[in-house]
């Protein structure tokens, strides 16, 4: 493949017009644990597998879903440490916006700034692209919103989306199941069922993580007890 000769440098286009490093970054994302998001009529839910490398790991110390602001949450597929860097930068940008305007940052603005950071790392010297795709879920004056941001810095608004290992099966499942008038609870059930589709092993509140935001505009990660309740309803 002629492209491989151009894969050494991020800032060099290959003859086919691709930046090969970004393609590799997407591969890193594609081999990460599955995560998904669903936008309901009155909120957004994001969820991810939380497969830990060993049973000796204290699962309460691991949190993949994080808050960017009180009304915006994020989940990733790919390299965890890269997502932490992005979350840190985005949190700072959100607070800078608030300091200037004394107003909470709209979801689209925060997504744009996060995407701009990711794009910077595809055009600077001596850095590599981020090995994560992010699903950003928020609720602001424009209602519930769900965005996906890729390592290249492109972002899309989704009604429902999945990323990571099982992405094609998950997306097919979501396409069948998604309805425009879904409510938040239905969306959570659908999210669990979608995760179950490609899940290896027994799904439980210890190996998945779910975050929701409703009309109260407060993003929160569900406790294991709440996840158990939803799992029981799904059975």
């Amino acid at each position, binding site marked *: 493949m002629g492209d491989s000769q151009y894969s050494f440098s991020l800032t060099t286009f290959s003859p086919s017009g691709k930046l090969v490093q970004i393609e590799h970054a997407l591969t890193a994302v594609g081999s990460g644990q599955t995560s998904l998001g669903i936008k309901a009529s009155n909120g957004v839910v994001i969820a991810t597998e939380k497969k830990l490398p060993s049973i000796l790991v204290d699962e309460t110390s691991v949190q993949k879903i994080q808050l960017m602001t009180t009304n915006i949450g994020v989940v990733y597929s790919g390299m965890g440490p890269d997502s932490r860097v992005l979350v840190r930068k985005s949190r700072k940008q959100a607070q800078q916006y608030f*300091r*200037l*305007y*004394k*107003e909470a940052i*709209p979801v*689209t*603005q925060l997504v*744009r700034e996060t995407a701009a950071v990711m794009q910077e790392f595809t055009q600077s010297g001596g850095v590599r692209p981020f090995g994560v795709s992010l699903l950003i879920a928020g609720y602001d004056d424009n209602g519930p919103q769900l965005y996906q941001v890729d390592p290249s810095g492109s972002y899309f608004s989704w009604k429902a989306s999945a990323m990571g290992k099982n992405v094609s099966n998950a997306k097919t499942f979501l396409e069948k199941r998604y309805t425009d008038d879904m409510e938040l609870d239905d969306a959570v059930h659908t999210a669990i069922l979608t995760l179950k589709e490609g899940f290896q092993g027994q799904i439980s509140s210890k190996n998945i993580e779910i975050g929701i935001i409703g009309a109260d505009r407060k993003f929160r990660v569900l406790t294991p007890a709440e996840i158990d309740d939803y799992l029981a309803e799904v059975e």
Partner: protein
Amino acid sequence: MSIFEYNGSALVAMVGKNCFAIASDRRLGVNLQTVATDFQRIFKIHEKLYIGLSGLATDAQTMYQRLVFRHKLYQLREERDMKPQTFASLVSALLYEKRFGPYFCQPVIAGLGDDDIPFICTMDCLGAKELAKDFVVSGTASESLYGACESMYKPNMEPEELFETISQALLSSVDRDCLSGWGGHVLLVTPTEVQERTLKARMD
């Protein structure tokens, strides 16, 4: 003479029933010499948001240019107009950026916010915000303006009455100040229309 008195100015904004009025004098001076009698101190940011800038005229113009720049970018990025409260926070932040070499101007901000609720505020040259429910004043005639507004103001005035009140308050105050006057300029903003009027006054 202090730097704030170099050009002379008078600004006042008042809240009425679902409307607001903002008024200024028209004199531009260089110390005691009058140089222009049609100087604009009140600027439009968008249909429902106006800012008046008193103090040093060059700083007022520069501040206005910077604010219009920021607001236009905001409109392009966020695809909406700035709310008055947000705009006031922005003005305050921009003024404080120059804490140790400030712009010598005192803004008066007036706008209609969400649900067309009137919003007014003023701040000093360093960005200390002062929100008010009734009226705000600024400029070399501010002390007279405080007195005039305090006695003439009533809450919930209809647009016509508000216009009369703010005009009388402005004219009687600038008549007591040698550095401001030479006519008046009043903008009355309701949810549906904007009325702009020039006041005939003592030309001294």
